[in-house]
């Protein structure tokens, strides 16, 4: 016999009524990570679209599959404890743009990632990736950026930057 199923509004969000929650906080955070392409070099319309190889697309494709279902926010105990935390989906989307070869990358969004409410708000419970129906793997997106943030703090990223740009 299958166990009982509990139907309830998403955890950690203010409830409007019944199962309806107020997702304002999430929407503001989602916009806060600047989820748009900040091109390395501006191209005019005449120059045509930005081009990318399949290998370059692979680097971010999985992180672009988020459907904003908010299951990761409901699952994340850190978001429950610290509502300031930018949270799994928004930080995964930030990584999606940073990892895009057409984007200027880390430097454009580093301030948000380095903040207390950024990647360091995550304590790596990892349950966001378990509940994600799209296999976005926010825990992976966030935790590999802790390394980026640490390198940024120690100034290592600046040393590596010219080489990255030459690629």
């Amino acid at each position, binding site marked *: 016999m299958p166990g009982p199923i509990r139907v309830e509004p998403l*955890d950690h969000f*203010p*409830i*409007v009524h019944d199962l309806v929650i*107020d997702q*304002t*906080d999430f*929407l*503001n*955070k989602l*916009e*806060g990570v600047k989820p748009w392409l900040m091109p390395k070099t501006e191209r005019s319309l005449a120059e045509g679209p930005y081009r990318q190889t399949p290998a370059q697309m692979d*680097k971010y494709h999985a992180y672009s599959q988020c459907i904003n279902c908010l299951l990761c926010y409901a699952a994340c*105990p850190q978001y*429950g*404890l610290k509502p300031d935390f930018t949270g799994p989906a928004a930080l995964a989307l930030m990584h999606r743009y940073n*990892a895009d070869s057409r984007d200027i990358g880390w430097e454009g969004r580093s301030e948000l990632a380095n903040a207390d409410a950024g990647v360091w708000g995550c*304590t*790596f*419970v*990892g*349950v966001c*990736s*378990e509940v994600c129906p799209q296999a976005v*793997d926010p*825990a*992976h997106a966030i*935790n*590999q950026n*802790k*390394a980026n943030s640490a390198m940024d703090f120690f100034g290592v990223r600046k040393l590596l930057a010219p080489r990255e740009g030459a690629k």
Partner: protein
Amino acid sequence: MGRHQPVAKTYRRPAKVDWMRNPHRIRYMARELTSVFLIAYALVLLVGLWRLSQGEAAFDAWRAALASPLSILCHLAILAAAVYHTISWFEVMPKTMPDSNIPPAKITRGGWAVAAAASLLVLVVAVGGA
């Protein structure tokens, strides 16, 4: 922050994070808890260093204290916690690494192999030195 305005009237459930809600959270808390045992062991070793600085008699007294049944029991608990911490930490390690073509299972097994080899080396040196 942001241009979206919150809904004026909402209900907030009493904020309480239930760490025992699902097996994943329990495993996470178990992994975090084992680090307390690791700190305890680091403190034991630091006390040993401090006793060494006080001379031979003090160091021998520290070593004698380590041989007491209570101390051995504590060390067994710390060993168990350290083994659990090692296993569970390398299980999540692939998610801390940059994206690559290396399968996550390989990273985990590699970490376990290095930890086992290092432990074996320490054991050989300790038994050889005794």
